[in-house]
């Protein structure tokens, strides 16, 4: 049940054919037709403080300035009455990666996708912005390149729906969180935390959808977050061990401590490129 639903009718009145996509108590997402921009995604949310509003607007400006093909174009961002805001952004015609996980079991394909994601995120890592929620549900597969959605907004919004029983551990999706996110060691949450999440995604792609930290894959542990916390992933799995370079890449990305991962994101990029280059 959605608690205290945001009133959206007055805002949606500016658009044609709004269709509800999803959301929670703090944010609702619609697809709609805009008179100037065409098919758009409309995000209507509620902010609880001026600081929060500032943070959201800063991230929208970041996306606007980055003007990256890996993120939806930001058309507008406006405050509304009753502590609400409205973001209008490019509608991404595609499906979330979580519906395509079985289609990237060939390492070359998985790494090419990963390469796109790293390139896309590097624009923000350069500006010390961390996504914190780079899970397959937030990666859209389109006819062209993948698109990353919900940059940073997810970590601000709807914290309650994300953290669930992991509220003490800060905003994250526990099954895709790095160990430092799970333990809320804020000082060490940087681009390397996103790198860890991308490592999980890479692992899932190679396993055709299975989570690399899943107790079934690892053959130990009670749940995925517990295995993440202990650094227990499917190291022995054939899908990982069949290629030494891929295994080394994954091992580094899934380093238990941030210092064990690629220190600079372009080192990660270079590493992926050199492996992909080897496949050609």
């Amino acid at each position, binding site marked *: 049940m959605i608690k205290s639903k945001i009133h959206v009718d007055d805002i949606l009145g500016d658009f044609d054919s709004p269709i509800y996509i999803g959301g929670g108590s703090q944010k609702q997402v619609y697809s709609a037709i805009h008179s100037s921009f065409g098919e758009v995604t409309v995000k209507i949310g509620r902010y609880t403080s001026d600081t929060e509003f500032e943070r959201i607007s800063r991230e929208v400006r970041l996306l606007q300035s980055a003007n990256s093909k890996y993120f939806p174009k930001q058309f507008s961002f406006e405050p509304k009455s009753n502590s609400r805001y409205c973001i209008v952004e490019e509608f991404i015609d595609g499906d979330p990666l979580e519906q395509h996980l079985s289609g990237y079991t060939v390492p070359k394909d998985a790494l090419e996708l990963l390469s796109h994601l790293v390139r896309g995120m590097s624009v923000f890592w350069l500006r010390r912005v961390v996504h914190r929620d780079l899970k397959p549900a937030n990666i859209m597969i389109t006819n062209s390149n993948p698109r990353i959605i919900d940059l940073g907004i997810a970590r601000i919004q709807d914290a309650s729906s994300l953290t669930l029983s992991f509220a003490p551990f800060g905003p994250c999706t526990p099954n895709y969180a790095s160990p*430092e996110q799970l333990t809320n060691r804020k000082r060490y949450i*940087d681009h*390397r935390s996103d790198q860890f999440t991308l490592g999980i995604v890479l692992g899932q792609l190679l396993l055709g959808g299975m989570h690399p930290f899943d107790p079934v894959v690892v053959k130990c542990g009670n749940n995925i977050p517990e295995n993440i916390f202990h650094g227990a992933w499917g190291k022995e799995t054939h899908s990982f061990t069949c290629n030494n370079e891929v295994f080394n890449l994954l091992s580094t990305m899934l380093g238990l*401590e*941030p*210092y064990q*991962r690629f*220190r600079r994101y372009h080192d990660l990029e270079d590493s992926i490129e050199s492996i992909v280059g080897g496949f050609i």
Partner: protein
Amino acid sequence: MTKLLHQLGHRYQWSLTSIKEDSAGDGVIVGPRYMEPSKVADIPYSVRSRSIFDPQFFLPNTAAGKLREYSFFPDILSDGFSTSEWSIDSASECADRCLEFQLSMDFEAVVIPTRFYEGMPSNFITNQERQFVHPFLSSVERLGVDTAVYLQLILTDQMLKDRPYRTEILNWITSFPELSGVYLIVHAHNRTKQNADIDLLIGLLSFISAALKRVGMCIVIGYTNTESLLLLCAEPDAVTMGSYENLRMFSLRAFENQDGSTPRGPNPRIYIPRLLDWVEYQYIGAIARVVSDLDDYIGNDTYRVRMFQSSYNWHFTKPEPYKHYFKSFSDQFYRLHSSSSDTLVDRVLAECRQAHNDFEMLREAGIVFPSGSGGEHVANWITAINLWRQEEDL
């Protein structure tokens, strides 16, 4: 390949001459405690460009010795340094001036200074960031510094031996993509003349190899004694050698306000490469009676010839023992590096085992070394290397 730098201090001219005349050493680490700015500028460019500068902000409220000549030193800049009054503006100005000085001298890298902290303080990282790291990194960006940037760190033995604390430090220093490397100094309590603390040595080797080298950071280790040969196993980018003991073992003493009393000079010692240690020169006669080839133990350079003349007056102010050390130690260092037989770790182990056997042989022949100077450290080094090697799966 690991470089060998001279840790400059009192009598820095000996080091500079040693590089020039004996090709002993690859560069220097300049210490302003003993060198005013004009003397730093006098170092030939060919040496400076392979060297770094150590701002020595260890006690920022005490401008000891020639530190008074540096306008960027915190106590001089703020006319009396106080942690609580160290403002953002002061920190920025300090950073700008310090970096500008280093850049003007064309050093190989610029160094972000550190302050000394005892023990394992919980606010170590926060304090370092606020006082120096963030201001200096902002200055790096402001000045458009395109040379390598090293972060100086003084880690106590407690910090290095405590795995969780060590991990926090590693996570912290690797979070700055602007940094090319770390200039590390180890401060060990209750140290004997040679570093023989197995846990500390393993912690240090792990710090160098498991973390920094693996993620591509440079690491320079300052104030090292003969244990730098042991540290070779982890292949840091540079280690040091220093004339007097206070340049081979870090201590705050030289940076504190002196009470006017002159410390007693050290008993003259001679470095014996085969033994991996310094021995009081009076023991040479005893050793000469036991070994068949003293040159094999001590080396045969011009300084050794001079020292062994009957008229030679052994005193800690004489340069020969230290120049002999620079020459013979660097020869040993480069030999270990360049040999193609076995791995570097195996070569260092072989060197240690030989020293261990030599000490045993000398003891069995009746030579009584003082406690702490009888080769006890070598057995610990062998243990540390073996245990570290197992951890690293080498």
